[in-house]
């Protein structure tokens, strides 16, 4: 297996490491860059636990090889807090409604919802369910997650 140097910008910081061509982006983030906030549920693109934002779009990092992400800009759950450590409105709303239990799907859910609110500041319930529809949560039944996204959207609109 050939090794490759991979350089990408993760959560605003430039990072480099060497990995085999077959290394997935999620393994690269977790094992090479030690960013273990992004989780692995299925490794075949269904559960969404591995979601990250790559060049502005939510993607499943288990379906992308790290070499394909060379040069990309990535946001993971570790990058959602403000530079001052303040929670993002979505993080805060997830906490407010208790939009999780075991927390395992939560990073992926936050990523999916962050991407949604970036492109649609005033989503309907249907649009929210659509945006998180590719992320499985076995704990919550989604009700409090939908509530959280609604609360965050309102807070963000009010804050302008």
């Amino acid at each position, binding site marked *: 297996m050939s090794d490759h140097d991979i350089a990408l910008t993760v959560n605003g910081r430039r990072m480099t490491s060497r990995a085999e061509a077959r290394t997935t982006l999620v393994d690269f983030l977790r094992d090479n860059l030690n960013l273990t*906030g992004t989780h692995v549920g299925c490794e075949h693109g269904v559960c969404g636990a591995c979601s990250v934002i790559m060049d502005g779009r939510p993607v499943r990092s288990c379906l992308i090889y790290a070499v394909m992400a060379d040069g990309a800009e990535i946001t993971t759950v570790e990058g959602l807090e403000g530079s001052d450590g303040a929670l993002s409105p979505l993080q805060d709303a997830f906490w407010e409604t208790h939009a999780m*239990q*075991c927390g395992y799907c939560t990073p992926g859910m936050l990523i999916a919802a962050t991407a949604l609110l970036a492109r649609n500041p005033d989503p309907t319930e249907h649009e929210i369910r659509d945006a998180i529809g590719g*992320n499985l949560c076995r704990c919550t039944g989604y009700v409090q997650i939908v509530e959280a996204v609604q609360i965050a959207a309102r807070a963000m609109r009010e804050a302008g």
Partner: protein
Amino acid sequence: MDDATGYVPREFKYVSHKRRVKEDRRFITGRGRYAADVRLPGMKHVAMVSSPYPCAWIKGVDASAALALPGVHYVLTGEELFAHTNPLLAGVDVPGVKRTPLAYRKARYAGEWVAAVCADSRALAEDAAELVEVEYEPLPFVIDPEESLKPDAPRVHEDHDSNVFFHRKWVWGDVEGDFARAARELSFRARWSRCSTVPIETFVAVADWDAGQEVMQIWASIQMPKYPEQIARALRIPANAVNVHYDIDVGGSYGQKRGIRQTIVAGYLSRRLGCPVRFIEDRLENMSGGDAHGPDRIFDMQVAFDDDGTIRSLRIRATDDCGCYPGRAPLQLGKPVGAIVGPYRIGSAEYEAISVSTNKTSQEAVRGFGQSPTNFAIETAVDKVARALGMDREEIRRRNLIGADEFPWKIPSGSEYDSGDYLAVLDKVKAASNYKVLVARRDALRAEGKLAGIGLSTCLEPSGGNSSFEPLFNPKNDTTTWMESVQIRVDMTGAVTAMINTSSSGQGHQTLVSLVVGEELGRDPDSIRVIHSESLAALPSNSPVGSRMAIMMGGAATGAAKKIRDRVMEIAAHNFQLPVERLVYAGGNVSVDGDPSRTLTWEQIVDTAHRKYHDMPLGAEPGLQSIYTWEVPTGGALPNADGTCQMYPCYSFEAHIPLVSVDPETGRIEILEYYIGHDCGTVISPDIVRGMTFGGIAHGIGAAMYEKFEFDPESGQHLTGSFMDYLMPSAHEVPDVTMVKHFTPSPLTPMGQKGSGESGYLGGPAALASAVNDALEPLGLEITTLPMRVRDMEALLAARTK
């Protein structure tokens, strides 16, 4: 004196109030720490070699090609592991049946782990696993549970005299007489198919044998009682040479994370190779070879009733396909004994429980431990009685539900229900659903030519976990102790730290204990730290099984906090030179009753306890700490010879009302509205109870409409090893749910709490089946098999048009 027992009504300052959940902060910032996040220097990785045959002798394993790959360190066979470890504990002892982490001499299901490869990386271990050559001699196999019961069926375990792991029939009350006296009876078959909890995190175990300390360090995504002891027993080391780190966050379990086999493989390899070893199941390993499967049941039901709708008696025969090893599966037939007549005033019952093995993946514990399938069967029976009498489904329930003034109520199988107000919950959920409008909406849909139906289920959630099914099903096991412990330490600054003794898989135990301790001590829960112990420092616990932690961990927290309070009062009394009865405790401070100017503050008393022995009562223990271990209320008794026993202490109740439509062409079911009325006594954290209930409903939607582990009867192959074949509900399939609460305190717990960890799941599938049957009624069709997948519904509808 038992400090934790007995409910006294009171106003709560923190408990029952909306407050943020402590655990959530680390999860929303990506700072949870799961077993897969544990990385140790020099750590090696495991991948499994799985059997391609549902049944085969293992004639030999050739690992040479695998070991020739650079970076591959070891190939562990079932033969070697068997020689150096003890077989695993079984739920019931079955002669001639041994359960081992890797198949020993014979593979008994397709996907069973036959060998484990250990390498520098997981990818390398997977490459090498493909190079391991196993020589098999395929054997006849059996997939269908009823086929498996036949005398000439292929034997799953050749040293056992049949494929039956457990078979017993109990008769409680005058069943025969009640059937004879009843005006009518009906019988039917209901089918609950093999599905499970399927957490998004697979099972992960990290083992590190510390040869210096001679301790096996374990980090694992575990939810299981007596895990360290089971590891020690299997690895043949003392239990105090096993240290399980309970501070690992577990990515969901709902009963299922019982990875003892995975742990033994990792632990053995770590000791053998002298390095840390991590095994992360991939999804296929989890779904086919792991502990992924759940109850798989055929119910043969008979019900005796009168023309006025009174249900007199029930006969239930449950044939459960437990797969190939007796893990927790036979016992999952046992818990329903504690609620065998549901929430109804049914005077007698017969229960025949059959646990049969097949060449399938073993069954492990699933949320509700067999109660949800049983509730589905009972509720189907009640609906059928209503239909037979032309009576409304609600009316029949009203006539049979136990009344609020009838508690404690003893059911024929011996368990006493603690409290409840079932009719009030039913009224509330009906009101919330705006029932008349709901009916009008259903009828409007029908008028448009659609199939639409309203469902109703009224179900119990036995909670608290006496686990009397253990001695009931396995008389050799005379366990009646099901305790939980909490330790509290007040340090010299006055800060409070509580310690719990199990891992958490999303139940919010830190929040639970901080609220209860905060309430009892009058200290702000946000200021209370709750830590998970490691097993070498742990007090007795039985882990969060059986919907027991609000009751048991909550009760232990009350007990430990009251001990602290008593010590504080004694120290204050000594310093005031007054009897304790003359003092009042408020928020940690102690004042003389009627004279607030004479107050000792929390800080002063804590300081005295830690530093001023000269101000302490004579002979007092220095410092301020307590331990409380609580036995489950109503526990401590072995079952009687006739099988009657107290199964669980507390009974939560739920009533579900969904509205569904069924596409007459494709059979697709859509849930249009969903209401639940729920009563789990005093709610400690409202957000947590809401979440558990919504999550349980979603899980129930999966069991009712989507999820099934399928095996090909011809080849014996497991067909649903990925999320592409085993479908779980997403936010598209799970509707918004309206929940209404009712609070009937349990008289058995300090705050009146009952369990809620299984809520939603225990009545959801029954309610959805009820709704679909209501939708199908105009066509004269009925479905009593779950799941009601599109293809199942399509087949049902197509059969009619033929």
